[in-house]
């Protein structure tokens, strides 16, 4: 956690501004591990802060403020991925019979097999992984951020770890991003 939750007062505009400045990049990076589109990650992060601001008076300091915003943001990202899957189906239908667009080689250079594998996971699993291994949340904080029990958090972390280990396998070595095939399509896992 970046800041203790007791520093924020519910309903205080100044405190919410401070929460935004502190948490925006962290929440954005969480969603960047869930969503492959940076603009979508930014949209969902902004939407999450809009929702959080509207409910800021009702926030209770018993849960960390950043975990609370994370919860809203992850739910928003899950909704976005559901609608994105529907849009991708429509796109596939429109492209039937046409030549497949070639991937941009420059795009592959900035891609990461680790992030690609994370984005292929169900969003609840990838969110748990990012909250644990990037933000350093403990199980209780992850449970507050995802709105589940600590036991569920443990199960999700275990499932995500197994899946990532299988997907990454031997390619999971530092610097393996350049060796990733240049395919700009990312398959979303079932939510």
């Amino acid at each position, binding site marked *: 956690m970046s800041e203790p939750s007791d520093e924020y007062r519910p309903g205080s505009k100044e405190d919410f501004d401070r929460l935004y400045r502190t948490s925006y990049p962290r929440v954005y*990076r969480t969603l960047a591990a869930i969503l492959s589109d940076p603009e979508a990650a930014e949209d969902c992060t902004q939407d999450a802060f809009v929702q959080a601001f509207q409910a800021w008076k009702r926030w209770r300091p018993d849960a960390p403020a950043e975990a609370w915003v994370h919860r809203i943001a992850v739910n928003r990202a899950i909704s976005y991925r559901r609608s994105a899957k529907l849009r991708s189906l429509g796109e596939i239908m429109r492209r039937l019979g046409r030549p497949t667009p070639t991937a941009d080689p420059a795009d592959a250079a900035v891609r990461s097999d680790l992030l690609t594998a994370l984005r292929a996971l169900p969003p609840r699993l990838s969110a748990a992984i990012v909250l644990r*291994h990037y933000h350093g949340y403990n199980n209780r904080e992850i449970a507050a951020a995802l709105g589940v029990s600590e036991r569920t958090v443990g199960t999700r972390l275990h499932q995500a770890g197994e899946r990532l*280990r299988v997907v990454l396998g031997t390619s999971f070595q530092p610097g393996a991003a350049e060796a990733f095939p240049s395919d700009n399509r990312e398959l979303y896992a079932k939510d």
Partner: protein
Amino acid sequence: MPKTEGDLLGRDFARRLRAELDRVRPRYSSPRYMSPVRNPLRFAPVALCAALAGILALSGFMATGSPNPVVWTQRVVTVIEAPSSTGAPPPAQDEHEPGPAAAPSHEAESKASRDGSEPRESPEAAEPPEAAESPEPAESPEPGESAEPTDDHSGSGGG
């Protein structure tokens, strides 16, 4: 001892994940929560009330022909009180134009003729002098409607 997710992923995972996500640079656009655009439905209740009031005013105007709300109120009071005082539905009063002789009391009489045994429910039904008090029957006797008073008179007697 069961393996944790950290054992499954290896020690290198967290370091690698931090390196990858730290490379992600969020764009600091202006916070949307500070924008003045708010919920477009916040005026919906007010708009709904205004629409209902407008519909009510329009229907009141169409029913009475007057833009004065006092007239609408009087019309409502008249319509509500008329059935309760006479016991007959108000449209019957509109349908029967006042006849030459028995028109002022035709409602009471016709009710008495229909009910037969209950002519005394309404006190107005037992007031034949109303016909004499009202000048209307003498002014415009309509021969086409003379059958009704005749029926009423015969009905009142025969039951």
